[in-house]
């Protein structure tokens, strides 16, 4: 799967300028994500500059390019929070899903992290192929005691959408997962924060995606284009402004892409007159486009959406009695930096 090419990336000084602009705009936190942020050779300098500018700095990484020296330098540079992604609880599962031998290295990273007093989040990407390993995942949490563990159900964009047939859990698996995580949350109270992101196809109401379009989050791509969310380029006719040409403030406040789904004027029924519109903002625009063909429509996962039946059909296929986990070896499309 293709990500942004290196020769179009912003240079170091551009990022440094952006951190100052971000703080002036009132932004509190920056997450270095990707792709793989550690692939940038100036990542330590970027962490340092962002922290000096006044931002809270998080690194969201697979941990694969990391060694002990680099981690020490990142912490010294002022890194506040380290989020490490996991594809499974065992080497075998991780290898099947990601087509890499990444798991043992990630366990080393967890050991190195214990030397430092920074925030640590373990992020398990959950789906049908690894939902059965929840107990082992929770054992890892018990052993490593991160400040937070996130069980993030795969969302169906990009890689997830391409592999959806193999990834959606059954209703039974999901119910069991919720039960286990509720218990774990109780046991870990005061020690590790537990966050569970449900697969929203099974939800009654949609997620307040990115805290509402153009309200809480802006994503600056490696090449300088600024997007309201990670998936926004699936929506046709979207033009994204670039920080090489305009200031962050100008883009945030005035760009067509950010303005497109702000406020409520763009909403269709039932969102337009729904009591929940200020709670979930009608759900996800990208998902509305991907499933219903219209980015302004009610997110089809909503039980009130006119297009909810499209989601029900997909769930029915997953929950057929004949379908069972690992019955058929799934064919995965792989992405770099799992």
């Amino acid at each position, binding site marked *: 799967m293709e990500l942004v090419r290196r020769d179009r990336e912003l240079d170091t000084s551009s990022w440094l300028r952006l951190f100052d602009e971000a703080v002036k705009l009132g932004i509190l936190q920056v997450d270095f994500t990707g792709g793989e942020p550690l692939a940038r050779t100036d990542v330590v300098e970027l962490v340092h500059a962002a922290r000096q500018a006044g931002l*809270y700095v998080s690194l969201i990484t697979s941990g694969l390019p990391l060694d002990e020296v680099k981690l020490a330098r990142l912490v010294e540079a002022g890194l506040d*929070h380290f989020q490490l992604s996991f594809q499974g609880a065992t080497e075998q599962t991780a290898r099947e899903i990601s087509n890499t031998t990444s798991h043992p290295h990630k366990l080393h990273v967890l050991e190195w992290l214990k030397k430092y007093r920074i925030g640590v989040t373990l992020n398990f990407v959950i789906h049908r192929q690894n939902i059965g390993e929840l107990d082992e995942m929770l054992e890892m949490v018990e052993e490593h005691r991160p*400040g*937070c563990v996130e069980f993030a159900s795969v969302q169906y964009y990009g890689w997830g959408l391409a592999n959806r047939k193999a990834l959606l859990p059954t209703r039974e698996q999901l119910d069991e997962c919720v039960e286990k995580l509720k218990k774990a949350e109780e046991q870990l*109270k*005061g020690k590790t924060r537990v966050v569970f992101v449900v697969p929203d196809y099974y939800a009654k109401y949609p997620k307040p995606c990115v805290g509402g379009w153009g309200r809480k989050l802006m994503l600056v791509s490696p090449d300088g284009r600024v997007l309201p969310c990670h998936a926004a380029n699936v929506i046709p006719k979207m033009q994204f402004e670039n920080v090489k040409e305009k200031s962050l403030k100008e883009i945030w406040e005035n760009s067509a892409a950010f303005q497109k789904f702000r406020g409520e004027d763009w909403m269709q029924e039932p969102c337009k007159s729904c009591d929940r519109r200020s709670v979930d903002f009608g759900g996800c625009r990208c998902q509305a486009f991907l499933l219903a063909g219209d980015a302004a429509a009610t997110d089809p996962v909503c039980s009130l959406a006119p297009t909810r039946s499209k989601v029900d059909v997909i769930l029915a296929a997953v929950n057929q009695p004949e379908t069972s986990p690992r019955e058929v070896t799934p064919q995965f499309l792989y992405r770099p930096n799992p």
Partner: protein
Amino acid sequence: MKPDMTATPRLAPGVRLNDKSQQPRTLLMPERALRLNGPSLEIVQLCDGKHTVLQIAEKLHALYAKAEPQRITDDLLGYLELLHKERAVDF
């Protein structure tokens, strides 16, 4: 879980205040932020691993002399319990 009066609360790993020069004063954590003012700011500033809960209560009693001390202590314990649950504070 409420802390003992002898506990010395401390900000959890990855949790810190924004810079003194930045307004509003905010408690920064992974993926969350808490705006602080008045008592909440005073409490968080004293969560340095050195002040006991009793000492924090006494400082608040002095700062808010017009309020009922027991009420202040109860509010303090409740607030520390909340911060602990959110993993903002260890004790």
